[in-house]
């Protein structure tokens, strides 16, 4: 649990941000220069607020009114840097155990073996950081931060310096971490895919201020018709695994609004079945065995009935009035138009309340909206091409060719 409320003025930059974050992953999301990294540095104690208050787990880290600003080493806040920052003169093992030297014995809550197992770094322990790949380094850096048993784990664009393949290698580990250890994570990113996949709660920053904060499914929904944000807008749907169809190598998901087809089949890191699992403090980690993590489950196949979270880009949704036929698209979700935003530009942004409650947004042209006569209250079918869903970004999905 963290409460943050700080102001900072620099000649070229002003920050005035307040938010709170609970269990699970809270994403700080926004364009570069919006102040995400500064917030992280303020929490870690690497930067001093002009005035403000930061409280983590009932410990006051900074309170300028009371004259308190703790130095980084007294805060017990873990920080994973963009580029690992492993100690080059120490072995992987010594890097991992570095923080333990400074953690009082009774506060060492994170077992070494569990971290090594969850992160899959057991075979790297005697190596030097210089001999590791970028993805391995980042995993060790995450482990090192965790093993100091922090109150809070900060991750400052931990995947930004990695290529797509390495990103896909690390994401499941971060996901597993979120579910296996009861340490809240504040995750900084400007990549909407990562945020949609990991975070339950999102704080959107713009120019040093909080533009919006709330559940990921609300905050990641598009807010404007501007061209720049068009490709960033995603909706998040929660669906149940119905079955895997080996004949066509697709997974069929069940959603109250209709069937969703996904390429590939699901592995084991899908979320534990939870009510909706999206809000902060959702009990995704409260299942039995949370601390031990059961990393070996990673390769097991996820059973029918498991919940998965899908992020669907608003630009990939087609709207149809009346049930379409003779289309290659197999996924058609039914719902009601609740809002259509337009301006003088080419686009219209439709928000659809799907049957079952999830909200889906779709970018269409203003022309299409006019010619269809689309209006609030209309019943529509939202069509989603299965091939446009990035199955690599769905937790636990195993791509058939790999």
């Amino acid at each position, binding site marked *: 649990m963290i409460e943050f409320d700080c102001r900072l003025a620099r000649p070229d930059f002003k920050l005035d941000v307040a938010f709170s974050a609970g269990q699970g992953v809270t994403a700080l999301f926004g364009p570069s220069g919006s102040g995400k990294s500064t917030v992280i540095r303020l929490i*870690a*104690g*690497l930067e001093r607020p002009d005035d403000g208050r930061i409280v983590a787990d009932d410990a006051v880290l900074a309170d300028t009114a009371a004259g308190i600003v703790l*130095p*980084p*080493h007294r*805060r*017990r*806040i*873990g*920080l994973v*840097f963009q580029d690992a*920052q492993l*100690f*080059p*003169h120490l072995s992987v093992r010594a890097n991992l155990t*570095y*923080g333990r*030297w*400074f*953690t009082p014995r009774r506060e060492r809550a994170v077992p070494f073996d569990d971290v090594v197992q969850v992160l899959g770094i057991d075979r790297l322990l005697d190596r*030097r*950081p*210089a*001999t590791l790949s970028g993805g391995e380094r980042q995993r060790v850096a995450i482990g*090192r*931060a965790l093993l*100091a048993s922090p109150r809070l784990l900060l991750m400052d664009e931990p995947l930004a310096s990695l290529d797509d393949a390495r990103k896909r290698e690390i994401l499941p580990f971060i996901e597993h971490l979120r579910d296996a250890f009861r340490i809240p994570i504040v995750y900084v990113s400007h990549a909407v895919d990562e945020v949609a996949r990991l975070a339950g709660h999102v704080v959107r920053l713009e120019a040093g201020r909080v533009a919006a904060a709330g559940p990921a499914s609300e905050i990641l929904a598009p807010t404007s018709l501007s061209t720049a944000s068009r490709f960033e807008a995603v909706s998040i749907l929660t669906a149940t695994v119905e079955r895997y169809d080996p004949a066509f190598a697709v997974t069929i998901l069940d959603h109250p609004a209709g069937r969703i087809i996904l390429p590939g089949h699901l592995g084991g890191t899908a979320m534990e079945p939870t009510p909706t699992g999206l809000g902060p403090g959702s009990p995704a980690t409260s299942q039995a065995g949370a601390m031990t993590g059961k990393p070996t489950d990673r390769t097991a196949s996820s059973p029918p009935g498991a919940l998965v979270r899908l992020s669907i880009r608003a630009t990939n949704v087609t709207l149809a009035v009346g049930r379409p036929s003779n289309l290659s698209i197999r996924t058609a979700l039914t719902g009601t138009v609740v809002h259509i935003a337009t301006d003088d530009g080419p686009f219209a942004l439709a928000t659809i309340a799907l049957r079952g409650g999830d909200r889906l947004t779709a970018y269409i042209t203003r022309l299409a909206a006019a010619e269809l006569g689309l209006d609030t209250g209309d019943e529509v079918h939202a069509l989603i091409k299965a091939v446009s869903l990035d199955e690599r970004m769905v937790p636990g999905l195993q791509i058939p060719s790999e």
Partner: protein
Amino acid sequence: MPELTPEEWTAVALSLRIAAVATLASLPFAIAVAHLLARRDFPGKTLVDGLVHLPLVLPPVVTGYLLLLLFGKRGPLGAFLADFGIVFSFRWTGAALACAVMGFPLMVRAIRLSFEAVDRRLEAAAGTLGAGPFAVFATVTLPLALPGVLVGAILCFAKALGEFGATITFVSNIPGETQTLSAAIYTFTQIPGGDAGALRLTVVAVVIALGALVLSEWLQRRASRRVAVYA
């Protein structure tokens, strides 16, 4: 090659002892000053920096004379330290002090550069892992700067072996007490028939210098292999 006389051996051994003591005794101070200059901003930093570098630009004889004024029997520091039984003037310890002062700027420069080359984000990482300022220094900064510290120490040692002007001005040229290798060679050149002795000691000086260079190269390579940087 003719054998060295006992007096010549004494001069060689004395030189090595003075250089070693000068280097080892000033190393902790050099590390502290270098760290201060590399990592802290404080009022008067330029002045400290200038004072440290002064022996590098002053004529050695001037440095030696200043030491004589300060640490001589009637000098303010010399009189104070004499109360504690520490005497520098006309002793080999004084020669070590002169050598340390002359080698200090070289040592501080090398160590400061290597401190500045240590990535501050690594120090920040250590801080977030719970390490206080001293622990960060001892476990991250110093080990990573070790090759530079070794270079600084060897530079100081080499400078101390060759020091002449400040030493002879401060503690004179007393055989067996303050007559170093350089001073002994100088003495040989001042007396008729001293050429052979001067030549013998010159050969020794060359051998020691070469040996120090080879040793420093070897130590550095070992240290930088341990402190492997990211590929």
